[in-house]
């Protein structure tokens, strides 16, 4: 199987679906992997995919995205949510699933285009925060990140540029 609907993702991660055969895969138990609760990605997933429900207790909470990628590559039947850059990095060892949101006709694979257009549902923007107007150094850094040179680096590491 190559894709899941948002609903299926939610049911899997809240523990209501526990075997791959229930979503069109082989008869294997689903190994749930997740970030630690201290992670922003965790909270984002909880809010937007799980509709604010709690994660299943049996989800294994690993320390960082890289640990998740390593675990998915090594373990049978494991699923995890990782940043695009990490998935691109590990292309040969893990499979990226397409996600079909409500109202969409088919699953959407993550890519620069599908994230930019909003078609890929499990995506979020990253923000810089400053205390008041950014001071000189901070402004220079932010400007660099948003400049073509900075955005090139964003693309190179597998993430989606803003402009």
């Amino acid at each position, binding site marked *: 199987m190559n894709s899941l609907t948002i609903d299926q993702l939610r049911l899997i991660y809240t523990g209501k679906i526990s075997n791959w055969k229930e979503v069109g895969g082989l008869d294997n138990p689903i190994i749930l992997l997740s970030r630690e609760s201290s992670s922003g990605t965790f909270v984002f997933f909880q809010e937007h995919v799980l509709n604010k429900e709690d994660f299943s207790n049996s989800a294994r909470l690993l*320390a*960082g*995205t*890289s640990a998740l*990628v*390593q675990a998915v590559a090594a373990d049978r039947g494991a699923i995890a949510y990782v940043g695009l850059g*990490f998935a691109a*990095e590990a292309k040969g060892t893990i499979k990226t699933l397409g996600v079909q949101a409500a109202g969409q006709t088919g699953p959407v694979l993550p890519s620069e285009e599908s994230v930019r257009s909003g078609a890929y549902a499990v995506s979020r923007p990253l923000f810089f925060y400053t205390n008041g107007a950014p001071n000189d150094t901070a402004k220079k850094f932010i400007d660099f990140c948003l400049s073509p040179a900075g955005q090139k680096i964003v693309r190179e*590491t597998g993430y989606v540029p803003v402009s």
Partner: protein
Amino acid sequence: MNNNTADKFILLFLRLVTYAIVLVVGYILFDIIRNGFSALNWQFVSSFPRRSGAAGGIFPAIVGTFYLVVGTIAVSLPLGIGGAIYLAEYAEQNRFNSLIRLAIITLAGVPSIVFGLFGLGIFVLFFGFGPSILAGSLTLACMVLPTIIVASEESLRAVPKGFRDASLALGATKWGMIRTNVLPYSLSGMITGAILGIGRAAGETAPILLTVAAFYLPRLPKSVFDQVMALPYHLYILATQHPEAERIRHMQYGTALILLLLVLGLSLGAILLRTHSRKKFRW
């Protein structure tokens, strides 16, 4: 039942278990040395990390660990040796001194992460040092204090009573006697304790997690109030949170190897020192 055969069997079993442990230890060392060796070169230990640790070297982590260790010893050694001298030479059997001994035993058993919480609460927050070498060293010093006290006290007690009596009989004051007739002979034992303390301080991650450690700093620390990189924390992050974890195995192993060499080198040094001084002072 033939006693002899049963005995031989049991003996063999004991020997097997013992050497199985030796083999396991050996394998762990072998695995890390074999995989980390290829990463070791001058560039690795002398340059800064690049691509957030995926390339370059671990120089700042080595320096950071060094600073932390120096800070830890600077605080815990005087307190530890002083405390040991008091316990071995001055303390009578009273309630207060039993309390001190209880405190030492308690400290020895406190989990390392609890030291981290303590360090966070008192040094980082209450005293306002922020995450810093100061906070980290003080926290590690608290952790290492029992080790130093116990080792120092043992080495003091090993000095024969006759040394003390001879000095006192000649009219020395108590402190004078300790200074000239006891301390010099217990010095190697104290140094052994200090080395063991350094080894522990260098290898611990949990206490520095919350009080000083950072993963990627562009510059070396300029003051004791700066954060610092450290070898154990660097290994932990490289192995579990770095985006290219699968591809930088050699960096992880290299870091592990450097840390291991440091700690083992210290351990071995302590063992050699102990054997040497045992041979030297045969009484």
